[in-house]
């Protein structure tokens, strides 16, 4: 049975009406899940939808329920977040776990491997990008659906929970010793940051490439919430400013805005302050987290029979770029003395 047939059978069952699926096509990217766009005709109407299905191997081990509830937490909140439509953790007719969400058409996502892509709209996009992130940080996670699926750490434990998790990923998946990231992890443990100012929903992968813009300066969809959790809001800010996502630019973060301007926009939207020392910790952490993800992708590439070139590229080229960033960050830290 084709994927189209499986979807029709599933949607017909859950909506108790004949559903006809058309124009189904797989979308590049989204390495942690297979992502398809499709239309469904039901009750005389056509709905534009996205299917996110677990692959056999993936870039990161993620919880599809978390991502589904993250969409549900912020859809309709004023942020451009698609609607969460259906979740099947046991796979149902599609055989592997999946969820379906609304599709926002007319936008494009940019690869982190291109020349700076935003042109004259970089400032406008950057203002929305960092303002939206501040809005996410400002929300009270205890009042949102995602709180049902992820624990809320103590304010002074956010850093440790995050670091333990990603160090554990490296421990589990590393296939060649990595002295640089190991040294960074030790520095992070030896110099923990101040406690989080508040608990926030952490998007987990808020960066260039994980949002859609309309090519005219407007951000129209915030996507890829598969690593969402509750934690320190500075975690997302550090990840968003990770040099890997800045197109090689040093004077603009994310290829969008000067760093101080981006921080000011985030502070205004979140109502929070960026403590420089704590943020330096979260910036180094972001580079460690990146290396953990690329370490996993290398292992998954082999485990999956070398058939997903995105995993291969991530576990090799991107890992080496990340090592350059980590080594530079480590060298810039104060001397032990």
């Amino acid at each position, binding site marked *: 049975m*084709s*994927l*189209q047939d499986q979807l029709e059978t599933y949607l017909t069952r859950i909506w108790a009406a004949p559903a006809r699926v058309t124009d*189904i*096509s*797989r*979308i*590049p*990217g989204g390495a942690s899940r297979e992502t*398809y766009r499709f239309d469904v005709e039901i009750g005389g109407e056509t709905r534009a939808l996205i299917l996110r299905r677990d692959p056999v191997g993936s870039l990161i081990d993620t919880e599809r329920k978390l991502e589904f509830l993250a969409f549900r937490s912020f859809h309709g909140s004023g942020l451009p977040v698609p609607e969460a439509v259906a979740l099947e953790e046991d796979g149902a007719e599609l055989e592997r776990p999946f969820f379906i969400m609304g599709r926002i058409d007319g936008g*494009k996502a*940019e*690869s982190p*491997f*291109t*020349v*700076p*892509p935003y042109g004259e709209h970089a400032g406008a996009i950057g203002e929305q990008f960092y303002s939206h992130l501040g809005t996410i940080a400002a929300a009270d996670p205890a009042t949102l659906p995602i709180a049902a699926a992820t624990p809320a750490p103590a304010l002074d434990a956010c850093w440790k929970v995050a670091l333990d998790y990603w160090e554990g990923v490296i421990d589990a998946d590393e*296939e*060649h*010793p*990595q*002295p*640089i990231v*190991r*040294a960074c992890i*030790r520095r992070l443990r*030896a110099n923990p940051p101040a406690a989080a100012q508040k608990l926030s929903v952490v998007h987990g992968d808020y960066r260039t490439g994980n949002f859609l813009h309309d090519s005219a300066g407007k951000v129209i969809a915030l996507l890829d919430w598969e690593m969402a959790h509750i934690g320190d809001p500075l975690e997302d800010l550090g990840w968003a400013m990770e040099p890997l996502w800045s197109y090689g630019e040093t004077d603009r973060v994310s290829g969008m805005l000067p760093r101080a301007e981006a921080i000011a926009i985030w502070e205004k939207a979140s109502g929070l302050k960026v403590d420089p020392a704590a943020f330096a910790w979260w910036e180094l952490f972001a580079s460690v987290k990146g290396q953990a993800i690329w370490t996993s992708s*290398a*292992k998954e*590439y*082999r485990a999956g*029979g*070398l*058939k*997903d*070139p*995105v995993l*291969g*590229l991530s*576990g*090799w*080229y991107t*890992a*080496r*770029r990340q*090592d*350059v960033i*980590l*080594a*530079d960050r*480590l*060298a810039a*830290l104060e*001397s*032990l*003395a």
Partner: protein
Amino acid sequence: MTPTVPELLLGNFLCLMDPPPPESSGDFLQSRIAVTGMIALLCAQEAERGIEARAWENTAIRALLTDAAPTYGAAFAEAATGEDRDLSLTAMDRANAALRRALIDLHIAVETARDATLDDAIRALYVKMADARRLDLPPLPAG
């Protein structure tokens, strides 16, 4: 390092060998072909520079371990013994893995001893190691 050049080039072949299902034949297939092209381009760089980078790194780590042994223990001198006679990527990576493990152990000992001079030297070596293995992707046009 992971993955290796032979794995990546084999992977390029394998991922394009099977005909994709109809729903994966448009933008997805085009993107996949583009990624395999990037991998091939970068594999050419690795073929050109990879041996030299590994030989340099292994030599640099051996020198560091040898110099540190009088202070931090003979085990580091023992870990530094040997030389890269087999210049295949596989053999050099095998030697590199052992040397990197010893370097990690040494760095931990240096940090414990609060030895700022050697810590600075190791951190400077990390910068050179990362730079030596760097792969350069030419700027690609935005879509």
